[in-house]
């Protein structure tokens, strides 16, 4: 049971030694964050993606200020404006740069408002799912034994059940509404996080710093949340970005299946699902623009996530 000396002294990879040695000379004082930032921006693609994402989020937040129409106010939406091609003039005398959808919503406004909802749904469900999955996964890894076995069986059961189906059932059960969609997405996702966190927490738990903390008489809660948790965040962030993107796409699919968000306050997914029926009609803009918006959003989230994965994965560190 004793861990014998396995000094990993002469690294085969010479550069692996470079970073710490650089630091120890005091020549460069990099906090992990600074180093993370500089490594992150090594990829121009990732940088572009991050800026796009920030721009999208800012545009979504500022939507009421930069759009000609509040697409959720039925008093401002007129079906007589329906299905106008891009560049048409609306009744209310503004230009619909991206055209309008079947109900007469200005697509540009609807896309920005829709982004708000999609991002809110994706991020909120992600955060809640992370919070739940994180605690559960951490608990499983830390306590072990029977608790872990039970938790992991539940996780397995949940994972073996396709997320789309879980969401579908729940929404069918609970009805529509943002809160319900979020709940459905949380239920569909938490297990991924639980599994991820448990995996890395198991590794962390076996590390000596946890034993050290225990021998210093620190409480279990403190060890779990202050010591182990911060070290499990990297994979969580990576899974989180990808799952968030996935949640947004999933929400679109649910809308397509008729169990998504309300018709009158369309998310991007609802816009796409609604525009779907126009795809063969030549009125491409109703589906294509929201689709592009979704694509750009998800691609940039994923590119950011990918870069995060590469930067945060110590095994790929050069």
């Amino acid at each position, binding site marked *: *049971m*004793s*861990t*014998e*000396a*396995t*000094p*990993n*002294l002469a690294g085969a990879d010479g550069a692996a030694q470079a*970073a*710490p*040695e650089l*630091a*120890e000379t005091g020549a460069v*004082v*990099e*906090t*992990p964050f600074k180093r993370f930032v500089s490594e992150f921006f090594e990829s121009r693609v990732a940088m572009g993606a991050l800026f796009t994402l920030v721009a999208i989020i800012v545009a979504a937040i500022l939507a009421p200020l930069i759009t000609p129409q509040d697409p959720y106010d039925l008093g401002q939406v007129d079906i007589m404006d329906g299905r106008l091609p891009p560049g048409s003039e609306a009744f209310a005398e503004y230009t619909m740069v991206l055209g309008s959808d079947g109900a007469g919503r200005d697509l540009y406004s609807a896309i920005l408002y829709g982004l708000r909802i999609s991002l809110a749904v994706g991020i909120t469900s992600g955060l809640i799912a992370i919070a739940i999955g994180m605690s559960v996964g951490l608990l499983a890894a830390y306590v072990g034994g029977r608790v872990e076995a039970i938790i992991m069986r539940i996780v397995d059961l949940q994972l073996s059940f396709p997320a789309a189906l879980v969401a579908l059932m729940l929404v069918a059960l609970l009805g529509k509404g943002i809160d319900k969609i979020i709940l459905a997405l949380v239920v569909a996702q938490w297990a991924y996080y639980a599994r991820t966190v448990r995996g890395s927490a198991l590794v962390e738990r076996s*590390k*000596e*710093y946890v*034993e*050290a*903390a*225990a*021998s*210093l*008489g*620190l409480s279990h809660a*403190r060890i779990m949340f202050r*010591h182990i948790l*911060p*070290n499990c965040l990297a994979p969580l962030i990576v899974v989180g970005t990808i799952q968030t993107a996935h949640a947004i796409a999933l929400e679109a699919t649910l809308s397509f299946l008729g169990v998504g968000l309300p018709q009158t306050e369309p998310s991007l997914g609802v816009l796409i699902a609604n525009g779907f029926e126009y795809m063969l009609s030549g009125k491409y803009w109703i589906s294509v623009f929201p689709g592009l918006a979704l694509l750009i959003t998800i691609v940039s989230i994923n590119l950011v996530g990918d870069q995060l994965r590469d930067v945060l994965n110590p095994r790929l560190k050069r």
Partner: protein
Amino acid sequence: MTEQASSSVPLIEIQGVSKRFVKRLDFAGKLARRLGAGLEEETVHAVDGVDLSIAQGEVVGLVGESGCGKSTLGRMVAGIMPPSDGAVLYKGRDIASLSGDDKLEATFAVQMIFQDPFSSLNPRMRVEDIVGEAPVVHGLVSGNGKSDYVDEILTKVGLDPALKRRYPHQFSGGQRQRIGIARALAVKPKFLVCDEAIAALDVSIQAQVINLFMDLREEFDLTYLFISHDLSVVEHISERVVIMYLGRVVEAAQAEALFAAPNHPYARALLSEVPRLDQRKRDFQPIKGEIPSPLDPPPGCHFHPRCPQAFEACSSARPMLKTIAPDRISACHLND
């Protein structure tokens, strides 16, 4: 506890301590066995009935190869792992029976220095938090006093306090090990368990850390249990040496006596096979065989399959530790 009592009672006493890691069969496993799957509960006797007492101020070296249970023993002493059997006594009181302040005192008194300077420091914490967290949490120092306190400790272990805002990865292996020592010192321990504490370090840094240990011992009147596979280090630093093989103590004696004339055949083999600078172009004559799995140790004397002097009794009866000379015990049938 009076001064008098503490001088007569050993600081740490280990009484018949065993540690078993059992993989139990669950319901399904039992059923499978009933159906003839030939499953057994697997028990690893990591530590098997070890007695050891360490007096205040002593440096004890614990030597052995992989699987001999020396790290497990160290962890039990440090209170990280509870023993399956037996008791670990701190100043004559069973640690397991303590509670409240007494327990905290015992917890602080025995600290551990770990092998891996990478994994033993939390990579997401700054040095000042690594060192200062426990004292602040337990009220040894106030939150305001933390900074000064950390400075003081870092200085003692030979680190520049100016570096305390850094993270572990910004330090070299030797510096990291110093941080680990500072963390332990921060709770004012009486006893340090050093588990291969220098094994991962370069030779030149090893020397620095060994020197540090010796300096600290003088300054704080520390007691050490020095666990290592490296005999030359143990020989250098320890007053008394305990040799373990597959969970059992095979020989224990004052360092000089032991290194001069090891009694147990395993101790002899071990000592002779350590590469030494003064042995050139030697013809290595190793003992044969592999170290058996602790899952399934050989009966009788665990060493008998590899022992050049083994005879019948060795494969059946477990040799008891006997005092073969003053302050010297050995577990070998040859001594009968």
